[in-house]
């Protein structure tokens, strides 16, 4: 029982000076939020993955938007919690008996505060839902005519791509840039997950069923990868394959060289 423990002050030195803690923490929150949002908008595009279609660019944009949207929320919690922890922390000597420590103020949530909090968080939640629905709509409602159909067959532990319109089968996926592609996916044995991150394509390969992924249009030439994202047994980790997005002319050449025919209308939009 030291001398310092006997004083039972209820406030802090800052209170005595008439400081408004709420105002301070709100300023801190606004400053941190602005820093957070600006940092998100500058940094996130730099670490976003390569995108080769409108779908995956939309996913990349969503990354930035959601992170920027989350920043004020995160900063609100952090600002209030850490400001309070630091400012109002118990300053008595650690060896002070617990019974002699003063209590904190009994603050209870007023109905107005609770409603305000609910309304704000609900508004944020519904914003993300609306955004997601918008993206989902863009992803699935788009139904361009004459897409290139690719049948994707997964088996332990490789992907096989066949082009029914061209009569070609390959273990490397060639895609003509600028032409919509419809992937029809199935599996010969167990569940596999067909994913091309760069194109924003994801569809499980279910044994016994054909599933059609939303149509995407590759927009950027280059080499990409497809992965299996459902654990499918021993060599799951090796179940990936190369994807080449090439010009329409190169695609037609490749089809011919592989013994296929280009009557499927490669030149159409």
């Amino acid at each position, binding site marked *: 029982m030291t001398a310092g423990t006997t004083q039972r002050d209820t406030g802090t030195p800052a209170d005595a000076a008439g400081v408004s803690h709420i105002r301070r923490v709100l300023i801190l929150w606004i400053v941190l939020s602005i820093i957070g949002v600006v940092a998100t908008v500058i940094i996130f595009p730099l*670490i976003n*993955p390569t995108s080769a279609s409108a779908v995956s660019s*939309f*996913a990349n944009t*969503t990354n930035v938007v*959601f992170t920027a949207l*989350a920043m004020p*929320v*995160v900063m609100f*919690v952090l600002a*209030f*919690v850490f400001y*309070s*922890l630091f400012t*109002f*922390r*118990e300053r008595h000597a650690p060896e002070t008996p617990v019974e002699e*420590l003063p*209590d*904190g*103020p*009994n*603050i*209870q949530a007023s109905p107005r*505060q*609770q409603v305000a*909090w*609910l309304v704000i*968080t*609900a508004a*944020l*939640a*519904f914003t*993300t*839902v609306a*955004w*997601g*629905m918008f993206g*989902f709509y863009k992803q699935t409602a788009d139904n361009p005519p004459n897409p290139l159909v690719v049948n994707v067959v997964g088996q332990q532990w490789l992907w096989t791509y066949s082009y029914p319109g061209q009569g070609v089968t390959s273990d490397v996926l060639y895609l003509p840039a600028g032409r919509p592609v419809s992937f029809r996916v199935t599996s010969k044995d*167990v*569940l596999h*997950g067909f994913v091309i*991150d760069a194109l924003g394509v*994801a569809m*499980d390969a*279910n*044994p*016994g*069923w054909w*599933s059609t992924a939303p149509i995407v249009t590759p927009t950027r030439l280059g080499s990409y990868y497809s*992965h*299996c*994202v*459902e*654990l499918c047994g*021993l060599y*799951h*980790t*090796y179940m*990936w394959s190369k994807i080449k997005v090439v010009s329409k002319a190169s695609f037609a050449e490749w089809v011919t060289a592989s013994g296929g025919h280009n009557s499927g209308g490669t030149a159409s939009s």
Partner: protein
Amino acid sequence: MSALPANDGSAPVRRRRVPVPSIVSGLGAGLLGAIVVGIIAHQLASPMRTGDTTLVAAYIAFAIFFLAGIGAFNFPVSWGLGRPDTTREEEEALAGKGDGVWRYFRFCTDHKVVGVQYLITVLVLFLVGGLASFMIRLEQAQSGAKVFTPGTYNTIVGLHGIIMIATTIIMLSAPFGNFIVPIMIGAKDMAFPRLNALSFWMLFPAVPILLSSIVLGGFPTGWTGYAPLADQAALGMDAYCITIVLVGLSIALGAINIAATVITMRAPGMTWTRLPIFVWSTLFSTALGLIVFPAFMVAVVLTLLDRVFGTGFYEASLGGNNWAYEQLFWFMGHPEVYVIVLPAVGAVCEIVPVFTRKPLFGYKMVVAAMAAIFVISMGVWMHHLYWSGANTALDTPIMLSTEIISIPTGLVFFALIGTIWRGRTRFTLPMMFAIAFIVNFLVGGVTGLYLADVPTDTIYHGDMFTLAHFHFTLVGTAVFGFLGAFYYWFPKVFGRQLDERLGKIQFWLLEIGFWGTFVPLFYAGLQGEPRWQAYIAGQYVSANRISSTFAILIDRPRTAAWTLVAIVCALTVAAIAFASPEPE
């Protein structure tokens, strides 16, 4: 009243050196039963499926004969045979009176003994699962499958996953739900003491059964056990399935007991509106588990039927469908996250008011939030299956429900902020874990937004971003809440104080190690690294190497601290340094 045998005032009446029935007779009977039944099943099995049939029969026999050997069925059998009711002395003996330390190895009805049994089991399982996670980071620290073969790696991942999931489900509601909840509500014991003992001892045989899969070729499915891969998998898969059934039964029995206790055994005056928040959270968590876990059990039983009898529930060629498994699994799989997190929320809502010396900000709000989470969580499972190819009509409603669940979760944050605001915080160990809980939950919650929304889930589905997200919620949130509760209630449970300084070292190593391990994996996931990779492709190596480096920080102190706490040997006393015999 202490659970420690050393504090027994009365002279222990020891009948034998090794009391029977106990874990020894249980294991003996279990092994004997497994061998006998296994041999019989081997003779009767169809030649196509001898291995699976023998193994499943032997596992079930092991569990049943273990329970018989430990005396779990003594009362129902003697009652059924018309013997007179047990006397008070017999009941006290069953509660471990005079058994000394052996009570922890017997079918003991004392809720405090069961709580301690669960706590030690949880710590041991964390150790095993933690070692597996360390092996995972070891493999992923470099490009190429160099440390383990892919098959071994898959088994390690699966063991890590299922051990950790099963353990985190019970880590708070079983040890503290048994030990603390009856004390909090003023009950003398649980509503069904024998059921309580049964729920623990039903969990116990699951551990050797699960670990036996290692010598039977492991299982390739990961913790999700997806069919039809589970149908075609080697013998080790049976161990996984039986484990799920035993764990599921154990969880159900424990949940019934806790619910019955909280509903019927509250002391006069302990009205629903005065129920401690941890009791509420345990009630919600166990009730939720009781509703959703059977779906997983059913799914796994169907897998077993496929494997043993050649039914075709999940075989497309026989008219089955793998979606059936996925739906049943995720109907358990997502609510289960809340089964894990809710008691941690409750524990943190107990800890924060104590160490800020303020009442909880909005008790009713937290109860309402937990009730809302309880309900909504059962309607979000399909967000794991946006890209399964099934039921796309549900994508939009599920996106809605998944984002809506962030609203009650936000209320929990509001309550914690309000409680901390102007609180005279003392930075004790439980409080530090509670603060870390808030920070980690923030990251875990926000990253969930991306996975709930279809456009971003397209690129994150099944990759390391998902993995980092759920480790932030399950480890950063739930396990940090558990550790806060562990340090908070340790003095109450064991009558001793742990060394605060060592605990703080563990806290900082854990928090820094945890962030260092999983933040790089968010980046790896953003770049598209899929999960379950024994072979790390070149472009993901640096993120994974950073992650693995930090994983050492988590694993070393955790392994060290928890092994010592768990095994409770002489070295523990030296290392953990029990400072004072009196709780604070």
